[in-house]
Structure formats: C-alpha cells, structure tokens
C-alpha cells in the first residue's frame, strides 16, 4: 500500500473519533506550546539583552580592579583598590596605549540622597561627560557637567527622573541643592524616564563628576572601573593587549594568573550573556519537554484502547489481504499524524502566545521586545512531536498488526 494512502486511511481512522483524537493530542499541544513559548521568549530576551550590551558600543573596554572571578564562590574583593590615578595616567599616555581614544574613571556607591526631610537611596555614579555619550543618554532638562567642574571638584549632579520625583515632587529641581553624606550638591540636570540602559538604571541614579564623588562623597583613592574606548573596532584587541601590558609592568606582574585587574570587552560580554540565556532557554525547554513524555504516554494509552476497539476492523483488513506490515504502518501513521497535528497546533499556539507576550512586554518595559520565532524551534517542535508519535505508537501498532484475522469472523 502506498504511503499516501496509508496516510489518508489514518486520517479517516482518526476522524471517526474526532473528540477523542482532539483530547489525545492535548498533551502534545501543551508540551509543544510551552517549548515554543520558552524558546521564542528566550530568543526575545537574548535579543533585548544583547541589544543593550551593543548599545554601549563595540569599541568600549572595561578595566575592572581585582581578579577575574573563576566561579560563583570565588572571592572578588581582593585587589579592589588596584586602579588609581597612577594607572589612569599611565593608560592615558599615547606611548603606552597608542590606539586608546578616550578613557574615563568610574566610581559608584549607594547613598542616601536628601532634600530637606525627603530622602531617597540611589546609586551615585562618579564619571566624566563621556558617561552620557557612552550610553547615549543625555539630560532631558539642564546640562552635563564641564571639564572645569570635573577638575575643580564641583559639587554638581544630574539626577534620575525617579530621584527627582521622590525628592522634589512636581516642582523644578534644576538649581536646587540636595544633600549627599552631609555635602550640599547642586542639581544641574535631570534625566528623562530612560529606565534601564545596559546595566545602569538611569531613573534611580545620580551622576556626578568622578573627582567630587571619589574624594568628597566616598573618601577613597581608587576607582571602581576604568572605561576606555579604542579608536576603532579593529584595534580593540590590540588596545586590550596594550592596556594589559601597561598595567602589568606598572604593577610588576610577570605571572598572568596573578593579575590584580581584568578586562571586559563587548564581544566577551556578548558571548557570556549569549551562553547564559542559551543555557536558561535549554533548561526551561527541557522542563517543558517532560510534558511531551506525559503526552506521549497518553497517546500510547489511547492507541491501545483504539486497537482493542477496532479488533474487527483489523481482522477484516487482514482477511481481505492486509499484511502485518501494512497494519503496523496504518496505526503508526495514525499515531504520528496525531502527534504531528499536535505539534503544528502547538507551534501555532506557542507562536501566537509569544507574539502576544512580546506586545505586552514591549508595553510594560517601555522598550522594544522583539517577537522572534526561530525556525529551529518550529522544526524542533514538529519534529519532536512526530518522533514521539513513532516512539509511543510503535507498541500499540505492533499489537494491532499481531491480531488474528479470525477475530473478524467471530460474531459477538
């Protein structure tokens, strides 16, 4: 018998028991829907996070004090003060790092910000004006501090929109004084509702000159980060090597495992985040896959019932010339058709739910959450469900093929 005909025979067999067929595939539909949803949302989340990292710019290099953490239990705190003005000056020299275009120190600390009786805890970032161009976020009102203000330890700040609302309500904040650790700081700018950009929440932060933050607010001599920019994307690698060499010679380090700093580039961050989100997606998809196994057992169960019910049909088919193989093919085809349809419905349902989720997430996050339905997930979803049909259909189909044609002749 031709395969196309055994397919239409299978369809006819399933149609005679429509409601049962539909209930049977429910398990598969749910399983595939969850897998598609997880994979699609995983891809969307990855797009979003990677997009955030990319927004920092491919030329950006972060120099972080301390040893690069090797695992979750590793102690990162060692050498936390290894980057100071001396290192900054050394890196800024063209002889040491020729392809370095810009470099900026960053310090940060969580502080209570006060205006009269109102206080609010926010992260104070100390940086240069490069900070705003790096993240491409500029004050909605007011201005960024100047070179002179940085050099002069000026007590000025740009505050996030949430900080402004908490401390000033609806009234104008520009020109007003706030208090941070007993110091009067003048507000010169306010960020609009930017939300999270990369790893910085612009709504709940205060940006100040690094000089003021480091000495007046935090009272430290080191920096928390040095952010550098290479003059072109091609020179990022060379620049990283030059920075490493400069800092090692400055700190008399000959053994690379004893480095008291480490360097992150966008390419590295991209691959790290990619690995993490992929692992998470796979993990969640694996959990969803358990429901597929449950669905498969359901298919097997119903197929066994169906084989028993259709003993006489099977017997008749054999009496009029069907071979065991043809009966096996027919019932296997029914199982695969069931799960295949379940797979297609699951892909459609999962895809639509993910699309809906992308609309809601875009609305909720105030950020574009791209709907993505990877082809691989569609192929995987339908493929996996067909395989489940084969695996769980083979036993009932064998039972059917072994039935004796004499049973059709026996009248009950």
């Amino acid at each position, binding site marked *: 018998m031709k395969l196309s005909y055994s397919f239409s025979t299978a369809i006819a067999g399933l149609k005679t028991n429509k409601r049962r067929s539909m209930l049977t595939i429910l398990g598969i539909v749910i399983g595939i829907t969850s897998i598609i949803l997880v994979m699609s949302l995983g891809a969307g989340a990855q797009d979003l996070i990677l997009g955030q990292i990319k927004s920092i710019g491919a030329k950006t290099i972060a120099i972080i004090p301390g040893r690069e953490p090797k695992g979750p239990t590793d102690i990162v705190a060692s050498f936390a003060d290894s980057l100071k003005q001396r290192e900054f000056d050394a890196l800024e020299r063209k002889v040491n790092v020729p392809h370095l275009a810009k470099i900026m120190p960053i310090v940060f600390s969580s502080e209570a910000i006060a205006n009269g009786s109102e206080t609010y805890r926010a992260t104070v970032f100390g940086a240069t004006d490069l900070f705003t161009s790096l993240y491409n976020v500029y004050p909605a009102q007011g201005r960024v501090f100047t070179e002179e203000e940085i050099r002069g330890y000026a007590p000025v700040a740009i505050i996030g929109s949430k900080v402004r609302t908490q401390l000033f309500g609806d009234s104008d904040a520009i020109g007003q004084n706030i208090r941070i650790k007993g110091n009067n700081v003048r507000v010169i700018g306010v960020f609009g509702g930017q939300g999270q950009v990369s790893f910085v929440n612009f709504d709940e932060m205060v940006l100040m000159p690094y000089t003021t933050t480091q000495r007046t607010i935090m009272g430290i001599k080191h920096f928390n980060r040095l952010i550098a920019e290479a003059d072109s994307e091609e020179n990022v690698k060379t620049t990283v090597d030059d920075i490493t060499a400069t800092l090692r010679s400055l700190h008399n380090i000959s053994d690379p495992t004893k480095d008291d700093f480490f360097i992150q580039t966008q390419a590295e961050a991209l691959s790290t985040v990619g690995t993490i989100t992929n692992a998470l997606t796979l993990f969640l998809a694996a959990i969803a896959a358990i429901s597929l196994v449950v669905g498969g057992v359901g298919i097997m169960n119903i197929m066994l019932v169906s084989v028993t019910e259709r003993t*006489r049909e099977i017997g008749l*088919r*054999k009496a*009029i*010339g069907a071979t065991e193989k043809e009966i096996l093919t027919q019932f296997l085809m029914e199982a695969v058709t069931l799960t295949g349809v379940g797979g297609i419905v699951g892909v459609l349902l999962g895809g639509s739910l993910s699309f809906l989720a992308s609309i809601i997430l875009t609305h909720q996050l105030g950020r574009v959450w791209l709907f993505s339905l990877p082809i691989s997930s569609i192929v995987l979803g339908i493929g996996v469900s067909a395989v489940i049909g084969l695996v769980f259909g083979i036993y009932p189909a064998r039972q059917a093929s072994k039935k004796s044609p004499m049973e059709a002749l026996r*009248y009950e």
Partner: protein
Amino acid sequence: MPLIEVQNVTKVYPGEGVVTTALNGVSFTINAGEFVAIMGPSGSGKSTLLHILGFLDRHTDGIYRFEGKTIDDYSSIDIARVRNKKMGFVFQAFNLLPRTSVLENVKLPLLYSDIPESRWNAMALEAINTVGLEHRVQHEPAQLSGGEKQRVAIARALVNDPALIFADEPTGNLDSKSGQMVMNALQKLNEEHGHTIILITHETQTAEHAQRIIRIRDGMVEGDEKVAHRRVATMEFVK
C-alpha cells in the same frame, strides 16, 4: 486440477489439559465454478473449516491444497496476497467500516492490491452495480438496511475478481426477504460471473440454494451430495 483439495484434514486446539478436536479427518474436493454449501449445526467445525480453507488458520494434520498449493508453500506476506487476489469474504456481521461510504468500503481490498489507483473507482463501481446498489454509492453503512449492507459486503468480496468467495452465514442477520436478495446476488455471481462460492450455513433452506451440500457433524463429513431440488432466489433487488 480441483480448486480446493482437502484430504484427511484435522484441527486440534491444545487447551490447558483439555484438547479440543474441531476437525477430525475431513476430505473433499471442490472444482472451480461450483456453488457449495458447507452445512452443519453450531459446534460442528464448519467455521474452523472455513478458517483453514481461507488461509486464516493452519490445520494440524492432513493435506489442504488451494490451486495445488498448501499454506506452507507461501510466506505470510504471500498468504495475505493470495487472500487479497484469489479469495473474497462475506461475513455474517457484514464488517463494514463505519462512517465510511459504500464506495470506500468496496474499495478496501484494492488498497492492499497492486492494482493502480486510477482503476479503483471504476472497479468498485462495477462491483456495486453487480449487487444493484449504484444508487447508494455515497451512503454510509448506518444509512443502509441489513440486506443492503450485506450486498455491500458482497461487492467488497468480488471487487478484486477473486476465484473463490467465502460466505459465512451471510443471511444469518437478515430477514427472509433481505436474505433472498443476498442469495440471489450469490447465485448470480456463480452463474453469470463464474465465481466459485463456498457458503457456510446451518440452515437447510439456505444451503439448498447451492448446487452441492457438504454436511459436517462433530468435525467429520457426514454427507456430500448434489442438491436434488435446487432453490432459486427469485427476489430481485429493490432499487
């Protein structure tokens, strides 16, 4: 060469402690073109005999040749092919596929044949015409009377133009009027189309529609004679 040659065939069912002998040395021959009734009360072994003749079961001892070959000459796939091409079955319980049209039911044996699909419809329609159901082609079994169902089953049995048609109590579930129509169809197939027909029944009246009656009792042939006053089913199909 006779179409069917049965020599001293026995069938023993080994049970748990109890051994049942269904057939105890049965012998007869049937030639092509004959219309033979195998008659006996229930438990006589006539159904077992049908299973063996139809290659649905294997006998324990003796020789059974169909067209000169025994079941052991064929592989299990070949046996299925022989049943498909050379034998047709009509059952007491009709055994039509529910929610499937008359046309599709009649086509069923063709699915398992090597006849090209392009000819299936024409062959099925011809068989349906033979039993006078051309006005019921697209009906489903639930919409048919018992007599019509059995005629669909006959059409299905003859669609592949088999040499031999087995009819196992074909009128057992029918009223006498419908039974007459079914017997009429079988007689027509035998006389006008030359099919060999083996009719299994327990009723003398039904058996007398055949040319010859083989009587079975307790697994043995009790009598084998020509029907002296053959009944002719006169009831034509009501269209």
